[in-house]
């Protein structure tokens, strides 16, 4: 068991965003959250991260309700990479990554050799070791995203949630980030728009539409021409000719 949402509902400003969503995240591997803009992907990630309380239903981590976990204990298990992290503070990459140790350090704990080691490893995993001293404001979009992932890894999470980590990145960086995510030793849940990349890198997919879960399963089962037509209103041709028989999608105009 990992994170699980049971029958959760959530609304914002009187507008229902999620309704009756039940989703169990399988431990290990990568779960992709798909759906059109405004379908509730980010909101579901926030509920899974414990940043918002569901109005109905509940979210649990290893069968323990999130609401009963202390914030700090939760932050040692579940890390979140937000869609567009921004700051006014003049931080270096190393300082951003060090923030990830916050939930592991008590009030009087000094910065330990282990803290430094975990941060160093996180930087190495995202390939930013030689940019550790660079200022946040001088980083490119891809580097910022990788720095945030390193910060999340420094939390040593067993589950890592990523909200559209490939947004605004060129294709090379998209592939780099997704390949990195796939090789991480954590259960990953990521919201993503690109169906082909989702099919390529995710072990399972969950599809949201208008705040409801409409499909869940292996990429080959979920991504069918009918579903794409039904959820996105787009005509597509799906062939199972990707690696390991994964689906690849070609869109049709008109």
């Amino acid at each position: 068991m990992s994170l699980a949402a049971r029958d959760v509902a959530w609304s914002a400003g009187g507008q229902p965003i999620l309704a009756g969503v039940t989703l169990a995240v399988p431990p290990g591997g990568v779960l992709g959250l798909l759906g059109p803009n405004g379908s509730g992907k980010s909101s579901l990630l926030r509920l899974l991260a414990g940043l918002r309380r569901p109005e109905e239903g509940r979210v649990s981590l290893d069968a323990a309700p999130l609401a009963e976990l202390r914030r700090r204990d939760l932050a040692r298990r579940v890390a979140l990479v937000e869609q567009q992290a921004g700051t006014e503070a003049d931080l270096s990459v190393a300082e951003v990554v060090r923030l990830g140790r916050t939930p592991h350090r008590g009030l009087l704990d000094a910065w330990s050799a282990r803290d430094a080691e975990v941060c160093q490893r996180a930087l190495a995993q995202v390939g930013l070791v030689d940019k550790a001293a660079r200022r946040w404001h001088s980083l490119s979009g891809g580097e910022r995203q990788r720095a945030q992932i390193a910060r999340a890894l420094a939390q040593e999470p067993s589950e890592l949630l990523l909200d559209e980590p490939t947004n605004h990145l060129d294709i090379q960086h998209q592939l780099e980030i997704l390949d990195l995510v796939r090789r991480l030793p954590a259960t990953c849940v990521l919201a993503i728009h690109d169906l082909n990349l989702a099919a390529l890198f995710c072990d399972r997919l969950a599809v949201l539409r208008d705040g409801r879960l409409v499909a869940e399963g292996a990429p080959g089962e979920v991504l069918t021409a009918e579903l794409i037509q039904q959820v996105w209103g787009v005509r597509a041709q799906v062939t199972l000719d990707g690696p390991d028989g994964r689906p690849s999608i070609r869109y049709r105009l008109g």
Partner: protein
Amino acid sequence: MSLPLAAEGARPWRWLLGLAAVLALAASVVLAASFGEMPIAPLTSLQAIANGLGLGPYPVERIVQGIVWEYRLSRALVAACCGAGLAVSGAILQALLRNALAEPYVLGLSAGASTGAVLVMLLGVGGGVLGVSLGAFLGAVLAFAVVLPFLGSGGSTRIILAGVAASQLFNALTAYIVATAANAEQARSVMFWLLGSLAGVRWPDVWLAAGVVLAGLLVCLACARALDAFAFGEDAAASLGVAVGPLRLLLLAVTGLITACLVSLVGAVGFVGLVIPHVARFLVGPGHGRLLPTCALIGALFMVLADIVARTLVAKQTLPIGVVTALVGAPAFAFILYRAREVR
């Protein structure tokens, strides 16, 4: 390049710099005790201070001893506490509200304090039992109570707007009272009070200010790492394990108490709480473990020096200290901003 992931405090020169700043602060306090209408040699001031601390006896004239110990030293120490407290409060609010323009008065506390003060000064509210200070303190607390419902939840913009609204409301009340009840002389004294004045502070004020500022600083230091986690916003802080709501309420209350207390003692001294945190950040970076003590030191030093200038710039007249902090501080800050642009 230094190792970016090395242990904190691994650089001893930082401690030396801190020590140098403490010594500079001590020296500025001695200077503040020497300057004034009756100049006293710094060595004599030092001896008088030593006498007061029970380290004497040194041969110092009784009247000089009295001036240094009873008047100027207490005044300089309140100035130091005031600068430290306002700068630390400003740094906390800027981090918490993620707004570079946040300052200790952003929640309307100074406006509330001024309303409380003029109620006592002009309308005689409290029938002489309430002093101006207590009236100002109660006014600040009232302003805090007005914005309190907005502090627990909602974004920082909402908090700032609530503070702006409270400021406008209490400023209007103050203006109304002054316009309807004050004669020209009273209006002038109100204006002086609003701009900040260290006149009339004595030792009991020192103990009050020092106690509140020190206790507040300790609480804030204990929250330093949690404040660092706010760099990428409240959700980011929450996902790093920070209990955002309770922490925000605690720190707003602590900075509110510090501010209310200082405003009630010396009036609404501007500039320090807004600008010193930026200067400190420029010197030691955004990490609050270092930033907050740096703010306290620079704020204290700046305020003591500003008070010396306020007492000596115009002969036989003491300027409101708020005028000096802005007159001296604004160009200095502009210079730092300009330099910072070149460095980055």
